[in-house]
């Protein structure tokens, strides 16, 4: 027993190593846990990019499962993400609503004309007010909404093939999204 006690400091040290390792490696300090999960999408009243006359509100987001993608033409990661959004739209019929975040509408129109348009429509959030209500602190960010307009999942950073496979698709399967798709 007396000899075993000599190992106590070593055990303490190993515990410390494990705790610090978990704290520093598993916890990416750049990714904030969203305060909006399981909450309704915040209210807004903003113009549509496609139809300047039209005003979109949170009610327009209801009625179907939707991915809301916050993007901008000044954001290089959004360019990388764009191809994946196109693939999700074409391959799975995923409906994506865009939020043009702190950007010139003309820039966004040019971008969509040049690279293709994966969105069913785009909301123009020119001064970033909707972004703040969404807890956005960079672009891109994406939100998965259910038919009631509740936020089920948030992704900070790009949606890529891995995020689709591991995070978004399983959630859609849980909602029987794909079954509904086949019935249509």
């Amino acid at each position: 027993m007396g000899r075993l006690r000599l190992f106590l400091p070593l055990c303490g040290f190993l515990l410390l190593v494990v705790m610090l390792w978990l704290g520093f490696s598993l916890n990416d300090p750049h990714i904030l846990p969203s305060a909006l999960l399981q909450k309704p999408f915040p209210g807004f009243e903003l113009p549509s990019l496609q139809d300047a006359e039209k005003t979109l509100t949170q009610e327009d987001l209801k009625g179907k499962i939707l991915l809301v993608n916050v993007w901008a033409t000044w954001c290089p990661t959004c360019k990388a993400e764009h191809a994946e959004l196109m693939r999700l739209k074409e391959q799975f019929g995923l409906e994506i609503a865009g939020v043009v975040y702190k950007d010139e509408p003309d820039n966004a129109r040019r971008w969509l004309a040049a690279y293709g348009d994966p969105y069913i429509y785009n909301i123009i959030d020119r001064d970033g007010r909707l972004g703040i209500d969404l807890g956005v602190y960079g672009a891109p960010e994406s939100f998965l909404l259910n038919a009631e307009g509740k936020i089920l999942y948030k992704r900070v950073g790009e949606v890529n093939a891995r995020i689709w496979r591991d995070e978004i698709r399983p959630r859609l399967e849980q909602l029987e999204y794909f079954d509904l798709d086949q019935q249509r």
Partner: protein
Amino acid sequence: MNFFQNNYLPVRYITVLLLLALLSPGMAAQGVIDAFEFESVEQEARYQSLVAIFRCPKCLNTNLAGSDGPIASDLRREIHRMVKEEQSDAYISGFMQSRYGDFVLYDPPFRVDTWILWLGPLVFLILGLAFLRRFLGQREPAMTDEERNELDQLLARGERSPSGE
């Protein structure tokens, strides 16, 4: 995510800005200066104290006052708006927390999932004191009464001996 992802300023402009910042140490120390207008000195003081207590969500350890990130500037604008609307501190704090979570608070609330943060140091202090007590208690006293008597006798003899011989 790339740290500079939101920076669309060419690098040479940033360099020039940094050099200018070096020339004016007073400005650099204050961080960012916005051209906000206030109705009273109290309002401005309140704004200044509020932007100091919230953490910028994008930068890991800078408050809203000290960050030149676009999101920090947007949040300063929101706080300015709420200060002008004479909203309460609790309202403004709630506004920030409901959107960006506890991350933006430098003073985290006491809750079930944060108790370890608040009580952890106290637990370690108690453990340390208990350990210290046991460690000190276990040590044998430096001398038994018997030994002390013996030592006294030796000392007494030593005092006598130089003059006794």
